[in-house]
């Protein structure tokens, strides 16, 4: 490893991200087993549904990977803002805006652009996410308004507007789903491995995560970004461009959320459906924190969430476990994963007498 010193050691004494993810998986397993035993009349089926079924065939594994992609993007967006010290809670509306814009561009653009509409849809999604993030970002930049506050307000406002647009002027009148017209298959991302829903999206996500990781750990702007997030005053006095840092991460996060929304449309969903963002903004915050705010851990954290979702669903499908049980297990796993028992402290407690001097 090269210049690891620059890696800012944030949580001294806490367990590392891989350890935390390992704990997460182990806990999920234990809780799922417990829930299955307590809530199901056929615990073995329930357990199999939770642990085996999601991995039973290539197609369901790949479905899981595909489902994790938008969540990972949103989590990445969350990290970009959180590491700049902004607490943006507007991811939900940004992703939703990305979806509707992508669906509109993909559907109406198809006549003019043909398969090129896919690209147009991606661009539209990204821009729409950025647009929803623009007011909080500009409010921060020019008025110093708290992003936490403005982002959630603006996002909620847009959710209503988009609900209206999907149910009203943009709705597909020929169907019963409250959704926009389905995009042509050629306008969607190609399925790489049918019948699974896998598209290129997870690979894009992987690349973005690596890039973000590189940005934070290895670039000057990334270091400045981090220092600003932890002590804006200090960053200002070091002569960093704090003006840009006060808004750009918020917009970048909006773009990532918008891209996530677009990928949902261009992947499994095929169009914009009313309410399709369904809590992804909040899950993403959970995933980002489980990943310890490290982009490199985001794909794994998102996969963990996708597995919990998928396992809970499979359990509901294959056994008599109610959907709420899956939800409850997911919540408990998130709780446990969020904990950071300090191993060094535990070890020191067991050892008590130090063996060597520090200096």
């Amino acid at each position, binding site marked *: 490893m090269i210049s690891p*010193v620059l890696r800012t050691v944030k949580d*001294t004494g806490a367990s590392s991200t891989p350890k935390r993810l390992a704990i997460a998986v182990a806990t999920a397993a234990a809780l799922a087993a417990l829930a299955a035993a307590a809530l199901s009349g056929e615990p073995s089926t329930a357990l199999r549904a939770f642990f085996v079924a999601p991995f039973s065939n290539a197609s369901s594994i790949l479905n899981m990977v595909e489902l994790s992609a938008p969540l990972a993007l949103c989590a990445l967006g969350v990290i970009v803002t959180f590491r700049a010290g902004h607490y943006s809670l507007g991811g939900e509306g940004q992703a939703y805006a990305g979806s509707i814009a992508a669906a509109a561009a993909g559907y109406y653009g198809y006549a003019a652009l043909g398969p090129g509409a896919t690209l147009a849809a991606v661009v539209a999604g990204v821009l729409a996410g950025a647009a929803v993030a623009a007011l909080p970002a500009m409010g921060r930049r020019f008025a110093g308004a708290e992003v936490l506050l403005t982002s959630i307000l603006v996002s909620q406002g847009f959710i209503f507007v988009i609900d209206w647009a999907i149910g009203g002027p943009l709705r597909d009148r020929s169907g019963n789903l409250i959704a926009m017209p389905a995009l042509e298959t050629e306008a969607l991302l190609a399925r790489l491995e049918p019948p699974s829903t896998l598209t290129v999206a997870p690979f894009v996500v992987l690349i973005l995560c690596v890039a973000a990781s590189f940005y934070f750990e290895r670039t000057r702007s990334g270091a400045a970004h981090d220092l600003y997030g932890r002590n804006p005053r200090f960053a200002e006095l070091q002569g*960093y461009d704090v003006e840009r840092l006060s808004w750009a991460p918020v917009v970048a996060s909006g773009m990532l959320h918008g891209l996530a929304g677009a990928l949902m449309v261009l992947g499994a969903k095929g169009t914009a459906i009313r309410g399709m963002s369904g809590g992804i903004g909040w899950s993403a915050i959970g995933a980002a924190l489980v990943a310890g705010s490290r982009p490199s851990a985001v794909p794994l954290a998102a996969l963990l969430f996708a597995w919990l979702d998928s396992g809970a669903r499979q359990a509901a499908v294959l056994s008599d476990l109610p959907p709420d049980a899956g939800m409850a297990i997911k919540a408990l796993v998130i709780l446990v994963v969020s904990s950071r028992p300090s191993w060094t402290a535990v070890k020191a407690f067991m050892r008590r007498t130090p063996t060597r001097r520090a200096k």
Partner: protein
Amino acid sequence: MQLATLTSIRKYYPSTNALAVDGADFSLERGEVHALVGENGAGKSTLAKILCGFESPDSGTVAIRGSPVSFSSHRDAEKAGIGFVPQYSMLAPGLSAADNVALGHEPRFLGVFSDRRRVAYDFSLLADRYGFSVNPDAIVSTLSASGRREVEILRALARGGGVLVLDEPTSILGERETEALFALIRRLKSAGAGIVYISHRAKEILDLADRISVMRAGRVERTIRPDDTDECGLADLIVRSSSCAAGTDSGSTPGKPGLTLRSVTLSRRGSDSLDGADLVVRKGEVVAVVALGGNGLDALEDVAAGVVGPDSGDVLVLGKDIHSYPPRILRSGVMAYIPTDREGRGLCAKASVALNAIAGRLRGYSFADFALGRAPLADADALLASFDVKNGGRRRVDTLSGGNRQRVVAARELDGPADVVVAANPTQGLDRSSRAALLSRLAEMRDEGSAVLLLSSDPEDASELADRSFVLYRGRLKALSGPGSDDSAIAAALTGVEP
């Protein structure tokens, strides 16, 4: 009878893998001031915290008045009569001074509600008794650094007792507050109290202490009487290698103005205001401004470093308005700045030591260098070595001892050439030898042509280094005649006494 006895105390911090205290023995008698000295990171604060119930030792015993105790919190220690003035502020900044002192012992009415009037009244009584003049309703964050320290001292005294532990109480106190504190300590002492006094200032210690214990690497190496040594001898004891460095004289002659303040006024900051300040710092000279807390020193620092714009007047750097410089340009080679507020402005507490050290020169690396090269790492090591910060850069900076944190700031800021240096209380928390190193580095920069503005509440800094000195009293600057004005002249000016 011994008031407090600490025997074979050990304390290990696993997070930094530091054995802070390594078998230290320490005792305190009735009616004595027992000074604790040692270089930065020697374990003084940790030992004090253990005595005060803040940290529990891994092994060893603490005995109060002969009977062994095991404090689980500071409250236990308080009940045993131990008051503590910590090295870093442990006040709630948004609460009033009186609320801070009453915290945990709030008087009530009807059994549930806080009795606001009593809180303020009790505080005033306390302040009067010990001769402090802090407004009970003042919000702590609006107080000057020395005002905050006074509140902290009052808090330690409020629950009165036989033992008072003071961890570098004077590092940011001015002359007058220091005198008042010493008078107080003598009074307490004659009433039979025992006082543990941690400080890096040899003169104070010799004045005040009955016994002096020298700590090194977590152990109390020896305990002596003040009569057995002098200032230089004490310094030698603390740091084996160091010699007693004297002040440095300027070799060069002043050049063009580096930093200019023209009738700068900054008001609406309570007692911390500036009133028509005029000041020119030329390249190649050190100008010192000394003030007691709350006389505008913080305001002067903010204005000179460009943190806030003045209400009226101009601040010029190399003849151009300070705000006409883009921040990036200003901070790369034009102005170096050591702030008083070390944790808030000087460091990013949650980042690594290394990143803190090279934070100012990120732009200096090429993309590839920073991403892949070894230069940043090597630079960080070199910088830290220049101020003798040991123990690597990977740990978080807020696990360093106070003095070592200050060294990180100094290492970063005083590294390259700079046209202007604004150094505010740069020696706070530094031990004798690193203080000398810092002052000589400032002198060196002056000789290389920097304009150095030294803002300090410690007249000693000024008299050692400054070519010209000013005193700031109630927001007005007043020049002192010539370098090395004698201490009594400064003291008189500081308190507004006209000669």
